[in-house]
């Protein structure tokens, strides 16, 4: 487990993740499915969680780590409460998401090479394509409750309004001051 983040922060313990894995049949082919559930419940995949998923489906930790570090949906580092995806598909790129991405990162004060805001609320990532190209440029937010919100025709104004709303929600829930 060298180099793999140990379980930090978050209110969800590895036990709760294990509990959620119960519904998944114990067979190696369900590794991706198990990691998906773990990612959703825990918010990221620390070593303990990957190990729990590996044990559950009956594969070595090394193979689970190999898979956990391959797919975009998974992160072995802690992420912000809100995962904001900026679509960089052809149409969204042409229609202004390059500028939107820059705007979003500067709005959240996220430096080049970084992805998560310093208050731990937002992680900004580029995404391949959301399939809503007719309403490009598109951004998507994965909410802490697992819901996904897709916003079409995004502009800096739309993005600012969205971030304001999410910040307000975070304050109301006591995640930030």
């Amino acid at each position, binding site marked *: 487990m060298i180099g793999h983040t140990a379980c930090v922060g978050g209110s969800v313990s590895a036990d709760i993740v294990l509990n959620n894995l119960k519904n998944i049949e114990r067979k190696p082919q369900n590794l991706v499915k198990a990691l998906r559930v773990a990612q959703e419940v825990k918010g990221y995949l620390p070593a303990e969680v990957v190990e729990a998923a590996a044990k559950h489906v009956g594969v070595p930790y090394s193979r689970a780590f190999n898979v956990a570090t391959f797919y975009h*949906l998974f992160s072995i580092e802690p992420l912000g409460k809100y995962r904001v995806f900026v679509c960089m598909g052809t149409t969204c790129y042409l229609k202004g998401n390059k500028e939107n991405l820059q705007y979003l990162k500067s709005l959240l004060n996220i430096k080049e090479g970084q992805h998560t805001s310093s208050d731990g609320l937002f992680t900004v990532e580029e995404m391949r394509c959301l399939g809503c190209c007719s309403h490009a440029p598109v951004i998507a937010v994965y909410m802490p409750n697992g819901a996904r919100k897709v916003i079409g025709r995004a502009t800096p104004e739309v993005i600012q309004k969205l971030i304001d709303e999410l910040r307000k929600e975070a304050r109301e829930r006591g995640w930030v001051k």
Partner: protein
Amino acid sequence: MNRCCLKCWHKPPDNPCPNYVQCRIKGPLCHDDPECRELRARRLNELEFGRYGVKVRVAIASCTLAVGAAEVYEAIRDYVKESGLAIDISVVGCHGLDFIDPWIEVVRKGYPPAIYANVSPEEVEDIISRYLSGDVSKAFALRYRTGNAKGEFHVPTLDELVFWRKQVRLVSSNCGLINPESIEEYVVRGGYLGLARALRMRPEEVIEEIKLAKLRGRGGAGFPTWIKWKAVKDQVSDVKYVVANAEEGDPSAFSNRLLVESDPHILVEGMIIAGYAIGASKGYVFVGTEGDLAAERLKKAIEEAKKYGLLGENILGSGFAFDIEIVQDAGRYTSGEETALLEEIEGKRSTPRVRPPYPVTKGLWGKPTVINNVETLAHAAVILRDGWDRYATIGTEKSGGTKMVSVSGSIKRPGVYEVPIGTTIRTIIEDIAGGAPEGLKLKAVEVGGPAGGFLPVSEINIPLDYDTLPKLGVAMGSGVLVAVDEHKCMVDLARQFMAFFVSESCGKCVPCRVGTKTMLSILERISSGKGSEEDLELLKELGETLKDACLCALGNGAPIPVLSSIRYFKEEFSAHIREKRCPAGICPVSREVVRYEG
């Protein structure tokens, strides 16, 4: 939607009715009962116009949800509740006319069904009350006229609109019309008739039907579907699989998403037919990361099909058994590659396999496997329903039927359109999608997704088919068309595509892993004004190497956007190299840029 009356003695799975589907449309068939006949007629009427004779259809799909359809749905629900009106609200999928999102349709018996475009929650009350007063003048389009509503002759019918008239909607005929979560609505529109017909044929006759229909794979390669099916059928194996590829990986491709979200049963039907033809009893649908809604609706479709004896044991009394499982991708471009997705279904990294052996001999868990794109399987259902002879009259000599194309970019009417194979790209871009928006001029069209390539507008007078496009250095791919206007820079776009491939390359083979990175650094050099003429030659040489040497089609296709840009827009590359100038003013040619060597 079980037994029609007490006189019907069928009950799945032990005693299913072989004529179940026909019975739902014209029934009852196995007995004669006026009361039952009356009940059936009433139910069909109810499906069309709702329980009270008035129904509002709200399009709920990923596309409409991105622009506020959920709020429109809530507004309608609240209005109906508060006003106490006797109206049914029904969720439908999407027509593909994305420029009218969010849209709703109001239907009332004896009146023209009216479609309203770009609806906001505030307008809902006015739209419905006006419609109920017999005034359709504010509608965007009507499905047909009845001659008794106010203003109906000022509103076009769908068939009068060029973007509808020029389409041939075979696989998308239910999209935007039926509730994707209602098997009953699918069945009364002829759904599962193809399956019912297939089960009365021998498997080899089903394959012959697909052959005569000239169906070719809609996922990109255009491989004749019947050859694949026959190859798996001829394998001797205890277990065989059908895999439906619904992981629409190509950026700007959204026709599969729309089809599965709007009409999941057509995929279920196509898969069962494929399973029957090749002798498989298990199928997997591989859905993309963003396919939550598609997966949800498919799950419902599978459950319902099982409940009504159309899936599971002894389907329609034929003795044939089939089951379908959904697997969802965890996000990777390579996951859409046919052998890589097998790896992911097996719970591993989605990296492509070395071929041969091909999946038809050694596929999922080493067993013979047919992997088809979802649209291909939907076409199979249509062919079995309508017969090959009718299907083969549409399309070209070598390739029958239609293709759903996703049109986006600098275009007036973005959306998904189903056109006969062989329709010219110009017809799709200019007539159907309306060309560039006011004040803009088109320069290029990206055809077929990232691995497809760019064509200049002067070249788009060519038919969209599997044989003509490769001659021009592009491919039909997943049916993507992205319109690029004059204010965009082709060098920048080529660079962006390569950046995409660099971040998405799975790293398994060297040509792709190293080649894409090297090509990107050259393109960055050109776009920052530091390129040379030799760089273009180097790009071409590298590009040809990738086309030949990569392990999978995604790597083979990676250089095509660059190669096609150099082929058709050389002057833009020259401007960056010789004049140190970006004609569109996008690339950082004149600015000092930080380069990352790595």
